[in-house]
C-alpha cells in the first residue's frame, strides 16, 4: 500500500515538473502532440508563415541525434513529399516554389547571423563590427552549421529506380560510344 502510494506520488511529481526544452513538436493538425516551452529559446522553432500566426510551427522533426529537414510548403503537412510524382527531371519544378522560397527565407532570417540575412545589405559600420567579431562568429557559425538539420530529398523508390535505369542506359550508351571510337582510332 505504502509502495503504491509512493509510486503514485513519484508519477505525479514527474508529471508536474517543468519539462526540459522540447525541440520536437509537430506541425498543425497534431495539436495534442505540440509542446510549448516558453521559458527556453527555441532555436529550431522558426518556421512561421506570416499571415497565419495561429498555425503550429515546425516542419522540422528531431529523431535522436539526427535531424531531417523536409523542404516544402509550410502550409502542407510535413509528410507531404517535396517533389511531385511526375517529371522530377523537368527542371525540378515544385508545386509552390515561391512559397518554398519564402519558407526558407523566413528560416534564414530567424537565425542570429547577420551575414546570412538575405534582404539586409550591411552598412560600413556593420562591416567593422563584423570584422572585429569575425573569428568568434566563424566558430559560432561553424557550430551552428554542424547542428543544422541535414538536408534530404523526398523521392519515391519508383522515381529513384527510374532515374537509376536512365543513368544505366546512359552509361551503356557512353560505353558503346567509347568502344566505337577506340576501334576507329586503332583501325587507322
Amino acid at each position: 500500500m505504502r509502495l503504491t502510494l509512493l509510486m503514485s506520488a513519484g508519477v505525479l511529481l514527474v508529471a508536474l515538473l517543468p519539462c526540459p526544452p522540447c525541440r520536437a513538436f509537430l506541425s498543425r493538425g497534431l495539436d495534442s502532440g505540440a509542446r510549448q516551452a516558453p521559458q527556453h529559446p527555441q532555436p529550431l522553432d522558426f518556421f512561421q508563415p506570416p499571415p497565419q500566426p495561429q498555425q503550429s510551427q515546425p516542419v522540422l522533426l528531431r529523431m535522436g541525434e539526427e535531424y531531417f529537414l523536409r523542404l516544402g510548403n509550410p502550409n502542407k503537412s510535413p509528410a507531404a513529399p517535396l517533389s511531385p510524382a511526375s517529371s522530377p527531371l523537368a527542371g525540378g519544378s515544385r508545386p509552390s516554389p515561391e512559397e518554398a522560397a519564402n519558407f526558407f527565407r523566413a528560416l534564414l532570417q530567424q537565425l542570429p547571423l547577420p551575414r546570412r540575412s538575405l534582404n539586409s545589405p550591411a552598412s560600413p559600420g556593420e562591416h567593422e563590427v563584423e570584422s572585429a567579431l569575425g573569428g568568434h562568429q566563424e566558430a559560432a557559425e561553424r557550430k551552428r552549421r554542424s547542428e543544422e538539420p541535414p538536408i534530404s530529398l523526398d523521392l519515391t523508390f519508383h522515381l529513384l529506380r527510374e532515374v537509376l535505369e536512365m543513368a544505366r542506359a546512359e552509361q551503356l550508351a557512353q560505353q558503346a560510344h567509347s568502344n566505337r571510337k577506340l576501334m576507329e582510332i586503332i583501325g587507322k
Partner: protein
Amino acid sequence: MSSTFKLQCHFILIFLMAPRGDSRSLELREAADYDPFLLFSANLKRELAGEQLYRRALRCVDMLSLQGQFTFTANQPQLHCAAFFIGEPEEFITIHYDLVSIDCQGGDFLKVFDGWILKGEKFPSSQDHPLPMTERYIDYCENGLSRRSVRSSQNVAMIFFRVQEPGNGFTLTIKTDPNLFPCNVISQTPNGRFTLVVPHQHRNCSFSIIYPVAIKISDLTLGHLNGLQLKKSSAGCGGVGDFVELLGGAGLDPSKMMPLADLCYPFHGPAQMKIGCDNTVVRMVSSGKHINRVTFEYRLLQPYELENPNGNSIREFCLSHL
C-alpha cells in the same frame, strides 16, 4: 632428296626472304616516322584521352553512374536540387569542384553527402558508416575550395544544391577509385551476384538492392580456418558475434528495416529467400576477430511472384518466404 639438302634449301630460302622482310620493316618505319610503338604514340594517346572525358549538363534532379564532367547552370531559380552518384560496388566516388559560381551569402548552397539520403533515411546507416552524421555533409559554402575533392566511403554519394540566380552554377568532375573491400554497397541493377568480404574488421557492412528480389545465398563463411587448428566460428545471432542478416523495408536506412532472417553459422549450398520489399539488404555484422565472407545472387521478382506468394509470407510487411 636427302634431308641435309632439304635443310640447306630451307636455310637458303630463309636468307633470301630476310632482306624482303627488312625492306618491309623500313616501309613501316617511314610511315610511322620511325616510331616503332605506333599504338602508343602521343597523338594517339591524346586522342584517346580527349574522347574518354564525358561531358554533359547536370539537371536539377539527376542520377549519374559514369565518370565525366558535369555542369549545372541555373536557367531559373532552382531551390531544391539533388544529384545522385552511383558507381560499381568495388568503386569509390570522387567529386571534384572544377568551378563553382554560387551566392552563398544569398542563400545558395552546394553540399556533398557521403552516401544517399532519401526522405530522411540514409544509406549507409549511422551504425554502418565510419563518420558521424555531421561529417558526412561537406558544405562548399563552409569549406570553400579547401576541400576541393571529396571522396565517398562507398559506391554512392550525392549532392544537394540551390542556385537562385540565373546564370550561376558549378562544374564537377566525377571519378571513381578502386575499393578493394567494398563494405556498404547499393546495387545498380536488380540482378547480380556479389561476394561481401570483411577481413578482420570490426565493422558492419550492408549490401542494398532497391528492388524486390529473390536472394540465393550460396556460401557463408563466418570465421577463419587456421591451417593447424580449426577455430570455432563465432556463434553469432541475437546481435552477438558475427552473423549475416537479411533485411527488408520500404526505406533506405538498414537500421530502420525489418530483419527477415539471421544467418549465424557457416554453410555451403544455396538458401533462397524471396523478399518482396522495396529495399532488400544483406548485412554482415563483424567483430573483427574473423574473416567473414558471404556470396549471394539476386534476381528481380516478377509481378506474378509478388501477386501470388506461397509458403510463409508476411503480407502485412513484405512478401518473404523461404
